[in-house]
């Protein structure tokens, strides 16, 4: 029963309530890092890592520090601070501990330091009154959903780049926005899949 519930949560976070296409979070990396599939994959891995870590840390901080001291209303601004510091810290550690991992993720980490998707995941988990496990699963699911859409979108954009049939004024960002709109409509088809 529990496991089924968590699976539902993951599906819901990935497909139904997708960060990019349903909640409009993380649009900046979605448009910025989707020119090549390779960089989209690197970004996705970095995002999964950061969102999961940040949500867990923020959850712990909220329930062990902020709530007992009746400072719950400060959560947004505290989370911003903590996430920014956390990502910088993680970047330093990775750089020291695993240069190869840093090579793969290094350039993406600073890009998502203050990304709204990261903050969104942490805040939404609090707003929805998730417990620790649920927060973890929700963060993992929604970041995977972000990665999935990012990679899909990068694939489409790479193909669009080859096609000269795209009118000149639509080249680049305009056609990317049109494409993301169509992609969002397609994901709307998942709307009834899971009820949360």
């Amino acid at each position, binding site marked *: 029963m529990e496991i089924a519930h968590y699976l539902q949560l993951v599906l819901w976070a990935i497909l139904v309530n997708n960060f990019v296409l349903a909640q409009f979070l993380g649009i900046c990396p979605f448009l910025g890092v989707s020119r090549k599939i390779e960089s989209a994959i690197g970004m996705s891995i970095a995002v999964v890592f950061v969102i999961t870590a940040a949500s867990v840390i923020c959850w712990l901080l909220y329930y062990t520090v902020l709530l007992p*001291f009746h*400072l719950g209303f*400060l959560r947004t*601004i*505290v989370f911003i*601070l*903590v996430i*920014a*510091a956390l990502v*910088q*810290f993680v970047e*330093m*550690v990775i*750089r*020291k*501990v695993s*240069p190869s991992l840093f090579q793969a993720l290094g*350039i993406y980490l600073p890009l998502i330091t203050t990304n709204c998707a990261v903050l969104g995941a942490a805040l939404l988990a609090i707003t929805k009154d998730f417990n620790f496990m649920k927060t973890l699963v929700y963060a993992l699911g929604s970041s995977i959903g972000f990665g999935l859409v990012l990679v899909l979108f990068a694939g489409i954009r790479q193909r669009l780049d*080859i*096609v*000269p*049939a795209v009118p000149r004024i639509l080249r680049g960002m305009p056609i990317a926005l049109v494409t993301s709109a169509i992609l969002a409509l397609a994901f709307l088809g998942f709307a009834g899949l899971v009820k949360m």
Partner: protein
Amino acid sequence: MIDPQVVIVSAASLGSVGIASAALLAGASRFFKVETDPRVEALIAILPGANCGGCGFPGCSGFAQALVDGKAEVTACSPGGADVAKQIGAVLGREVADRARAVVRLRCSGTRAVAAPRVEYGGVDSCRALLLVSPAGSKACPRGCEGLGDCVRVCLFGALRMGENGLPAVDEQKCTACGQCVTACPKHLIAIEPYDSTVFLACSTDLAPKDARQACQVACLACRLCLKACPHDALVWDGRRPVRVDDKCVGCGLCVDACKQGVLVYARGAVPEPGVRAQAERLLAERKAVEAARKAAAKAAAAPQPAAPPETPAGDGPAPA
């Protein structure tokens, strides 16, 4: 009403979180410090910072790292140009020669009129797309220019234009040899050449001479007449086609005249200087005379042994070279 205590508590707690994070990061930056070559930082400061990737490395910092590792050419930064190359050389302690001006040239002269088609292509107007559909291309010569203009589209300087004849034309005055078209050409038909060189081979076919003759009227047929015509040894054979040796070529154009196929051509309509030309002709005549004398001597030495072959004098007359 806002309770002033709440404000103070908020500010204090937020401040303490900030100070704690700062302390953590400061400690971490000390503790997890990675020793980097100070030259990398210096190079990053010099580079344009456009992160264009034109050098083939991930961004300017990647290029700086590669430079320090000795994996990159000092002159590889196109946007920076000679200026940045000099500064990089100063940081790395390497002497940077002034980069000679270079241009791109198309290694194909198979216009629609002279190159036989292999298939009819009516798809998306792009060489890359065509090669996805038909990997051997649409012309009988697999190394023929498709003429769909992928190179023209990527040129940032307006130096390429698709000609009426179905081949891109390079405006060598505008070309900066940035190499965008070189990478855009899926058949790798565009070569970066020194601007000063005046003759070049406008063909890169790898077909056997017999097939090349069928495929294209202006294909290099590997006859090597150009090699024989060069008095400066400025052409060497790479197994299929002549390759110009830049520091030997004086641009006399004797090879261009020797080429029966017309694939060795003058760049941007250059005309050889009469003096250079005359000198080269003299040199070639001298060489031929020496060669003929040597042959005659060899024949004279070889002649007495067999019983006087009748065609000996006849074969000597017209020089086959």
